[in-house]
């Protein structure tokens, strides 16, 4: 079964539409949304409805820090851009949309796969996986063979052998990577709604649960329109700019 992994959507309708259309054309039969559906972008309501609609049809979804913040208000650790957007986002969302975000679990396990927003060692604390050591800590904290997570916006693939040796890989788009059952894997598909590796194209990944083959994708979308909406909503200019330059 082909499973589309979509994370850090960040209220970017144009990016989400492009990614879901690509996934459908690739034959996606199942979706996993790895959190941060809102924050930064101009279409929080539309994106929450989209995820909720997929969940009603059997998709997996977990809560991200921006989703938690939209419900409960900004956290002290958030950067100022994020804090400003959190308040705005909260106003945009209807009660049922906030209820949906509040009801999301922090982790979901399906067979040997773990879905979580930030990491497996302390999901509610939102620590980032920036380095091999963080990835090892996360993989050692779960019995699942493959962890799919977001939070970090750059696509990455980590692997941990039974001998304790860890590897890190910056994926190349559209290349099929067989994930050997001999080791644990940690997959960061990269952000759909706010890519940050100097490439504005939206990220997502596809995993074939039968063949254990993983493919990272980059999907160009109309980021100028998404950025224009951010500006029109009166959100910080920097958030519009980074959609256009991927920075």
């Amino acid at each position, binding site marked *: 079964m082909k499973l589309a992994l979509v994370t850090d959507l960040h209220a970017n309708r144009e990016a989400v539409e492009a990614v879901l259309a690509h996934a459908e054309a690739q034959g996606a039969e199942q979706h996993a949304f790895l959190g941060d559906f809102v924050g930064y972008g101009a279409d929080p309501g539309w994106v929450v409805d989209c995820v909720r609609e997929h969940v009603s049809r059997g998709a997996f979804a977990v809560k991200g820090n921006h989703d938690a913040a939209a419900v409960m208000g900004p956290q002290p650790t958030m950067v100022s851009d994020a804090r400003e957007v959190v308040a705005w986002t909260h106003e945009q969302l209807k009660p049922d949309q906030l209820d949906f975000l509040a009801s999301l679990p922090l982790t979901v396990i*399906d067979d040997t796969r773990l879905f979580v927003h930030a990491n497996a060692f302390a999901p*509610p604390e939102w620590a980032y996986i920036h380095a091999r050591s963080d990835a090892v800590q996360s993989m050692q904290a779960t019995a699942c063979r493959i962890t799919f997570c977001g939070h970090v916006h750059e696509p990455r693939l980590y692997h*941990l052998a039974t001998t304790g040796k860890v590897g890190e890989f910056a994926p190349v788009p559209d290349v099929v990577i067989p994930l050997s059952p001999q080791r644990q894997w940690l997959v960061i598909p990269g952000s759909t709604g706010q890519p940050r590796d100097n490439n504005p194209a939206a990220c997502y990944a596809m995993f074939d649960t039968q063949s254990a083959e993983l493919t990272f994708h980059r999907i160009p979308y109309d980021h100028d329109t998404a950025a224009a909406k951010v500006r029109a909503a009166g959100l910080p200019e920097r958030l519009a700019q980074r959609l256009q330059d991927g920075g």
Partner: protein
Amino acid sequence: MAAESGNTDAGVPFEVAAPATHPLRPLQAGQVIDGFRLERHLHQGGMAQLWQVVAEDGSIDLPLIMKVPRILGGEDPASIVGFEVEQMIMPSLSGVHVPRFIAKGDFTRQPYIVMERIAGDSLRARLDAAPLPIAEVVSIGTRVATALHDLHRQHLVHLDVKPSNIMFRPLVDGAGGDAVLVDFGLSRHDHLPDLLDEEFELPMGTAPYMSPEQVQFVRNDPRSDLFALGVMLYHLTTGERPFGSPDSVRGLRERLYRDPVPPRTLRIDCPPWLQEIILQALEPLPDKRQQTGAQLAFELQNPDQVPLTERATRRSRSGTMKVIGRWFSAMGAEPTARVDATNQLARSPILLVAVDVANAERELLDTLRLTVERLLQTEPGARLACLAVMKINRIGMDELMERDGSSKHVNLLVQLKHWARPLVQSLKLPTDAQAGRVTFHVLEAPDTATAIIDYARKNQIDHIVMGARSSGVLRRYLGSVSTQVVSQADCSVTVVRAAAPQR
């Protein structure tokens, strides 16, 4: 939705079906694994055993082998990780220079790879007969360099090139005979994770063939494979190994500063150009070697175009002072900037310019030269082969014609070099490093387009530049050579036209 809230079970160790806990029963002839019937045990190696197998449903019309890793109670990470690497990489490879991948089975049940069986022995069998005739060394070297270039084009560095990992497809009516690389257990694919990164504390490879940068843990430079090929060519030419077969890291490091005994010292009939090619491939710094397999194959196929440097005439190894100097530099040396197969090939293309030097109009010849000059300026690692085709009749020529032909041949070569002169000057050739960057070839063939296409294929040309026939009348009667080349060549083709006056 199958959901669990809250924390996952922290601290639960990851479990795999480790071979140690599921000892595998010995395989037996007649046994069927995932639809493949084991027919005959072919080989027991240090890392794996090979079985001849057939697909039970008869769906695969190819001789097949099944490779099964040897599991030493689970305590041998080298063979297990190597097999895991091979299982990951093989499905992504294609073409005549690798065995076709058919199927794989993972470690949770029975680990195996089923692939096309390449008939015959590996090159290992010929090694004992070394020194081999020079023509055979050149033929083997050309075919292996061509195969390596094809793998490098597929983003793969083999990293364990040696005679026992090289097979040849059968030669039928003078065609075929392509080299096939096997065993990708140490290989590195640019587009796939490196499962061997960090895995071992010692350099990985086979001691006699390992490049200096492999000794320094660099695993992504395709020129490492050219060094290994250099070791093989040296051995096949002289009957001796250039760096022996060291069994310590210290012994391995010697190749960073100690150059081998020149082949001509060991074998007097080794031509200087072959010594030049071999010693260049064995340069400790990758930047000083041939830059791609295609360039190495090109030199082996065009000996008269190999620029001879001091290497060609060297009669002994470097003196003590020089070696000590190199030893000091090697001691603190870190491998230079990393390149990978994809980038290394992209910056070292071979361009072919086909020049109808005897017939084309002046304007077109000038435009053609200008186009080539621009291409060479943007790519300092590029090489240029200048080609003219001399049309001959399909039937044999008499002696008189032949004499005439030979002078025509020389005349064409002179004209071709004259055409390229401004180009060579603008590139400020030849310095030592630049010599050989531009080469000249006159082919005798009945059909110009076919000759260009074949030449480009044989020499793994990346880009053909040629002129379009300007006269409409000629084109109508003779057909367009460039049209045929554009439609049939394996590589990019640029067709140049002189600016025509507006009508």
